[in-house]
Structure formats: structure tokens, C-alpha cells
């Protein structure tokens, strides 16, 4: 690749300065406008694909909700399944805080059916974690 070199030499002249500033602004705006365009196009293509995919599969849950403005609201109390005592919730919260840092929030606690996990799904998961 042989770059087509500019004959602009950086100096402190008004001309170079104005050239840099104007082309800088134009290019920044241009690149980000291009990104808007590309993202919009791909967004609609992806939506189209997924809508068709859903129609075929009847799968309504694929789209993930963006969590709505949550910081100004007080942290919601975790959603807790019946039959799990308050103490246990506190214990889990403490454990999560210990391992995840104080900014983690417990949103929901469900009993996990420990004995019925599909061992092969799990093996596949291990495999993705231990890649070597």
C-alpha cells in the first residue's frame, strides 16, 4: 500500500489550524453519522431476521429487555421464592457481596433443583471454560 501523502505540513499557521479544525469536526461527525447509518441498517436487518426466526419457532423470549433507569430507584428487594426464609436471603446476599463486591444486587432467589441438571450440558459448559 502506497499512502497518498498530503503536502500539508503541521505548523502553527492559521491556514493549517483552520484546516485541521474543520476537517476534524467534519470527519468526526462523518464517521459517527456513518455508524448511525450502519447500525440502523443492520438493526433492521437483524430485527427482520429475528422476527422471521421467531415466527418459525414461536419463541417469544429471545429479545432481552434493557433494564430501565434503575439507579435513582431504591434497590428492589430481591424476589424470593416461597419457602426460603429471610435469613437465607440475607446469607445469600452476604455471600454475593463477599464474592462480587458491594455493588452487586440480589434480584431473585430460586431453589435450584440441584440433582436434576443435565450433566452433558454441564460438561459442554466446562469444556467452554477449560479450552485447552
Amino acid at each position, binding site marked *: 500500500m502506497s499512502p497518498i501523502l498530503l503536502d500539508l505540513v503541521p505548523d*502553527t499557521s492559521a491556514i493549517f*489550524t483552520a484546516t485541521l479544525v474543520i476537517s476534524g469536526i467534519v470527519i468526526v461527525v462523518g*464517521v459517527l453519522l456513518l455508524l448511525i447509518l450502519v447500525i440502523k441498517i443492520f438493526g433492521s436487518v437483524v430485527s427482520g431476521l429475528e422476527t422471521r426466526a421467531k415466527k418459525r419457532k414461536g419463541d417469544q423470549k429471545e429479545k432481552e429487555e434493557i433494564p430501565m433507569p434503575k439507579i435513582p430507584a431504591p434497590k428492589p428487594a430481591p424476589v424470593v421464592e416461597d419457602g426460603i426464609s429471610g435469613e437465607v436471603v440475607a446469607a445469600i446476599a452476604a455471600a454475593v457481596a463477599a464474592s462480587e463486591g458491594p455493588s452487586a444486587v440480589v434480584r431473585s432467589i430460586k431453589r435450584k433443583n440441584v440433582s436434576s441438571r443435565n450433566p452433558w450440558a454441564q460438561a459442554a459448559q466446562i469444556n467452554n471454560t477449560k479450552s485447552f
Partner: protein
Amino acid sequence: MEILQGVWEVIQSIFANSGYAFFFQPGGYKNLIMIGFAFLFLFLGIKKGFEPLLMVPIAFGMLLANIPGANLAVQYHDLEGFFDLLKGRGEFVGATPGLMDFLYFGVKAGIYPPLIFLGIGAMTDFSPLIANPKSFILGAAAQFGIFFTYIGAIVLGPLLHFTPQQAGSIAIIGGADGPTAIFVTSKLAPEMLGAIAVAAYSYMALVPVIQPFIMRGLTTKKERAVVMGNLRPVSKLEKILFPILVTVVVSLLLPDAASLVGMLMLGNLLKESGQTERIAKAAQNELMNIVTIMLGISVGATTSAQSFLNPQTIGIVLLGLIAFMLGTASGVLFGKLMYIFTKGKINPLIGSAGVSAVPMAARVSQKVGQESNPSNFLLMHAMGPNVSGVIGSAVAAGILLTLLK
């Protein structure tokens, strides 16, 4: 006798070579002043909470670099100089490389900032930007401050003798993005690295102080009270495609921005792919923390008295502030434009978040918005311009590198 005389000579010589004695030599007071500045930045980092994760290592590096005779200041400015230093030749005859010279190599070679961007990418959620790509405009507008400040630096030229490269490095402070500022400055004006890094992180910490006045001054109460609708949900596929598309589009157009944008987007892809959680976590935790320590200490260690104690530094501080303010103002004014074009659907306050300084600038938008309308939740909407501001400053960095390198 001879022994006691020897001991006396040794002790005398230790004192004569010590930093204490050096302070009384001509020019020695400058190191003392620099140590004072190190204390100031330690105070700002620890007590005032100015981006402490970087300010504390930078300030400590500054302290160590200005201990006379400790050989803990970075001694070279370019890769060639590094090799001369390792071999004790050229301007480095008689010099030995020290710890900081080795740690700084990762800055000079352009390794640390892209690795930090990898970690930032792995921490960033681009959904608000994908859901509302128009936010990109605000992320672009807030970078105008960079270019306006470039004019300011050149105008101050007759006084402070900034070269175009130095002017570009100062202007990038307005990008409100530490790693980008360090990356650009280490290439264009390495002799100013310490001052620019300190200014950039200080103003980023001051975002909640600097921005609200400008935001309130440029908007009406009615504008600030605009409540924005919910963002559309974003699918997993879009989140995976986004980093790939941005990399391709931006890197093809501005190859000089490719290291920063590429690594930022790789980090994000590792996070979103759903298959690479293990290394995404490594990128945002262990790798980023280790690189942060190295980057902070060694950037601090570039601040010799001679590069820091001169009128140019005052210019950097002043212009840095101007850059921030202009960036905020441009963002808000473009927000107003969008308010008009969308017939009041967009709250102009989210424009100021375009400076980056993630996530603080977005939080400032949220806070100022709630002052006018307590039921106003702008945070998620402001995150769009906010993360697009990171991409925007990397693009601006690419332009500056292309034209000034």
C-alpha cells in the same frame, strides 16, 4: 584513625549525594516543588477522590521521579532513546536504566492504553447506543471541544510556544478519556505526558462540578424537564454484531484509530459473545488492574521538574478546562438542536454526557434532569451519548494522529 576518617568521609559523601543536599544546589528547589505537587495530587486522589485509581499511582510516580539521584524518573522519550539507554550510548553515556524506564516502555510502545481499552470494552454495555443510534451525533458533538481547544492552544502560541503536536495533545484532554489522552500524547508530545495525564484525570473527576452550570445556562427549564420514552430492547445478536461493525467501519476509515477502537470493541465482543466470559473477566479485572498500576506509576515518573515547572503547564491546565467546558457546551447545544428537530422528544441534557467520562457524565445528566422534573429518569438515555463519546474521542485521536504524526 584512618578508618574513622573513612567512615566520616562515607557519611559526608552520603549526605553530599543525598536529596537533602541536592535541594540546596542551584535548581534543586525545583525537585522540592515537584514533591510538593506530588503531595497535592496524592491529596486530591485520596482525600478528594479525584479518579484515585490512577491519580494515586501517578502522584506516587511523580514523587519517586523527583527524588534526586534515585534514578526513578523516565529518562527517554522515544523507542530509539530506550535502546540507547539500555546500551548506555548517545545522550545516555554513563546512565543506567531504572525500574521506571522499563515500566514506561509499555506506554511508549503503545501497549498499555489499548489493553486498558480492552478492559473498558469488557465493562461497557453499548445497548443504549444500539437502541438509539442517534446518540452517536451527541457523542460526536461533544468532541468539538477538542478541536476548538486546538485553536486556543495555537493562539496561545506566541506566549507558550506550543507546537502543533503539543496543541493536539492538550486538545485531546477535552475527550475526557484518560487512556486516549495518554495514547495520543505519548506519540505526539511525550515530554508533556505527565502534565496532560494529571489534567485529564483531574477534570474527569471534576465533571460533576464543571458540567451542571454549563448545562443549566444553555437550556431552559422546559427543555430540562423533557421525559424521554423507553428504549427499545436490544437482541443478543445486535450486541454481538455491534463491536464487529464499529471496528470495521471506524478502522477502515481511520487506521490510526484502529488500536484503540479495535481493542475496545474486542473487549466488548468478549463480554457479549456469551462464550468467552473467562477471558472477558480477565480483561476487565486482572489484566486491567495490573496495567493500571504500571501505567499510573510510569506516567507519573515522566514528570521531571524541567518538563512540569514551566508556564506551558499552566497553559495545559487552563486549556484543559476550556476543552472540557467547550465539549460540554457543544454536546448540550447539539442536544438542543435535536430537541428542536424531534419536536421536544429529546432532552438536551443528555448531550453533555457525550464527553465520555463514563459513567459520571451520564449521571450528571440524570441529576440535573431530576432537578427540573423529579420523575425524570435520563440515565439510560444519557448512557448512549456517553459510550459513543468514548468512540468519538478515539476517532478524534485518529484524526489528530493522522494529521500531526
